[in-house]
């Protein structure tokens, strides 16, 4: 049995498909039948905040399988979001692949995204998708502390421990990086402004070293410049791959339920201005297919958000991390976070 909501969605989807088809036929008649009039698009334009090295093999497989040609524009997730906001209705993009939920949320808030089909929304646990069906999480990325097992004997059990004097001057953070800011946003929403400000001031007093990127923190730990740092879980693999050797840096998780273990996602959304919604939907379906997800885990060391797919080797399962529930939709609310970071002097 379909729920009323689902039926409505399907109906409205059918209606919009019909509308798009009518408009397409009408437009091609007006244009003297210059374009191809098939209902299934033969090309898709993707704005990808995900790096070419990691995502291109997947996209190539989809191209071969579907016969749909993909034009991919690579860039920084947030800059691409700013570009889409600037383009508005005129965006040539059909699909937006983002490194984090915040950028997707910002585009959704501007009303530039299409509702995704219920079949897609239902395949991913609700906590990793947008509540109003505007975007869907594709892979998971856990917030962790990276550390040197040789030099750190007492591991932190909470993000609050970063103000412990035993770590004074020994840890790194990347305050301009969107992953750090997403974490601070989550903190603000969960604990409130003043608790977050207190925490930020307490870690600043503990003299962290500041870096531009997560990978730089991992490298600095490997070099012995610092002993631990707040990063996303997959950077130890990325840095090892980049250096072409094993590294001694390990990922550590805080205690169960600690906000420090927040899970953010990379995700996908379809632009409302796209006339190729069906083909874009097929690509999202491909990205969420079990075999594709298993490849993500093996190759990019990210977590699959789907039930029953193993975690990357050497890492606890997503369900075991006991991450706190964070409303990923709210991560777009970065303005207040930035104000706070500016106020305490981190930006």
């Amino acid at each position: 049995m379909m729920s009323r909501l689902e039926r409505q969605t399907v109906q409205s989807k059918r209606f919009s498909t019909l509308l798009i088809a009518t408009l397409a036929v009408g437009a091609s008649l007006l244009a003297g039948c210059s374009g191809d009039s098939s209902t299934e698009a033969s090309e898709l334009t993707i704005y990808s905040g995900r790096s070419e090295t990691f995502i291109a093999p997947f996209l190539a497989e989809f191209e071969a399988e579907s016969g749909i040609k993909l034009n991919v524009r690579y860039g920084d997730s947030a800059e691409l979001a700013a570009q889409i906001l600037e383009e508005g209705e005129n965006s040539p993009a059909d699909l937006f692949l983002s490194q984090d939920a915040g950028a997707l949320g910002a585009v959704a808030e501007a009303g530039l995204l299409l509702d995704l089909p219920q079949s897609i929304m239902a395949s991913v646990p609700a906590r990793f998708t947008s509540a109003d069906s505007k975007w869907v999480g594709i892979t998971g990325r856990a917030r962790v502390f990276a550390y040197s097992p040789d030099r750190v004997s007492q591991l932190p059990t909470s993000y609050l421990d970063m103000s412990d004097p035993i770590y004074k001057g020994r840890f790194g953070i990347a305050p301009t990086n969107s992953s750090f800011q997403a974490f601070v946003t989550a903190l603000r929403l969960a604990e409130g402004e003043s608790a977050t400000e207190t925490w930020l001031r307490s870690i600043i007093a503990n003299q962290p070293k500041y870096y531009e990127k997560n990978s730089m923190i991992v490298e600095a730990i490997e070099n012995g410049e610092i002993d631990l740092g707040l990063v996303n879980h997959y950077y130890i693999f990325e840095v090892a791959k980049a250096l072409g050797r094993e590294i001694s840096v390990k990922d550590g998780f805080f205690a169960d339920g600690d906000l420090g273990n927040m899970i953010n996602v990379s995700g996908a959304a379809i632009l409302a201005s796209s006339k190729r919604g069906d083909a874009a939907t097929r690509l999202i379906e491909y990205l969420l297919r079990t075999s594709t997800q298993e490849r993500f885990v093996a190759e990019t060391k990210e977590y699959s958000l789907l039930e029953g797919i193993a975690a990357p080797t050497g890492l606890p399962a997503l369900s075991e991390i006991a991450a706190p529930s964070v409303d990923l939709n709210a991560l777009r609310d970065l303005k207040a976070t930035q104000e706070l970071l500016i106020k305490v002097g981190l930006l």
Partner: protein
Amino acid sequence: MERPNPTEQKRTRAHLGGFTLTALLLALASIPSLYLILRVRSISSDELVAILARPKTVEIILNTFTLAIVVATLSVVIGTLFASLIFSSNFRSRGILLALSALPLAIPSYVFTYCWIAIWPSFRGFWAAALVLTFSTMPYILLAAFAALRRIDKVQVDVARSLGCNRFQVFTRVILPQIRNSIAASTLLVILYVFSDFGAVSLLGVDTFTRAIQNLYRASFDRQSAALLGLILVLFAAILIFAEERMQRRTINARSTARIKEEIALITKKAPKALAFAAIIAYSLLALAVPAYVLITRMAGNFQGIDLASLATATFNTVLVATLGATIAILFALPLAWTIISTRSRFALATEKVVLITHALPGVVLGLSLVAFSSRIPWLYQSIALLAFAYALLFLAKGVGATRTSIERVPHGLKEVATTLGVSPLETMRRVTIPLAAPGIGVGFLLILLTAMKELPATLMLRPTGFDTLAIEIWSAASINRFNEAAPYALLLILIAAIPTFILSRPDRQFQDEGGRQL
């Protein structure tokens, strides 16, 4: 009634043509500033005051200015010193020394920074940024000073010497006043460049306007505050540009046919000569050998992984779009320079200033403003033409000075002769002025070409989807820490950019001689 004579009519028509093109340029060059104003208008006045009163805003302003002043001072001191040393000592290897000191121009600031961090992981902060930016801007001053030195009349030096001036006095009283304006004009470009640089300051963690603007876009999609900072930057750039204009003093331009060459050798003794030589070599080693060493070892670490096809495509694309950009820029620079010279109209002079202001803008601001402007024009949006046009707007400032000065130097008599022989103004332009001014216009073209090849932020936004340049490939690999994969692209970019740099640095070419005043 008197009938207007045909030559007069043609001249008026030519003026009108130049005027129209200048007006078009003014409209196009104002796009970024207009965009910023439109964005800022949606900020409430309370918010406006809050942003302006933030301690961070004050810090950004101070940082930006201190960095610009430190870099400009270091560049001017080192650049003028090196130019004078190379010029006035009888080094046999003059050409090589000049080329070595100019070559760092070919290295993008972000590549510089990555390389320094690679050999020295704790390389960070204000002085690190000042060092990198001095390396990458000093050659502008060096080349401008050298070109100006070559234009000084030898007779004046002889007269000064015969009147009892010592070498130092010759330098301060005869030489310096004549190269001062060239250096001032180049210093302005250096400062505007420091305003707009993103690569070095972001990697080294120095909060300047450009980094703050980029961070605001990056993290909060906050286009209003970013635009406000952008507008403040425009304001400061405008103040500087007017200040520089006031500072320009009249120089003695009379000259006989002879020129100073090796004759005013300031240093002839062995020991100081060796010292000067050592200083130049040390600078070149730091500026060139460090990046070369890092990039070559990185590339060797991943030799099998080099993708020749993508290297070739990226190189072709880089050269193609940078050449187009430089060509468009010169096509705008010519009518602008011509209108300024022939009419001295305020309107044309204002256009030149707007062009200079655009040079101070971060690539991301120019990029977004062109996205806002052109995304509703599907055939133009994300086309090669748009990207080339963006380069032209960003870097026109580097070509306008050289073009204007070289046209100004075409003897007026020649133009009058052409006119009395019944040649139309446009024909005179084509057959007399442009050929004579060509070397200077060439200098402008090469400078724009060179800079456009290295551009990244605007390229990311405006390139056609799937169109990869060398800078894009470097970014793509470096953003996920694959420096080994980035190295071949970086090396190739430096090698290609070294070609125009090398041509610019050849001292005994007329090329330099005539055009280099406002490098």
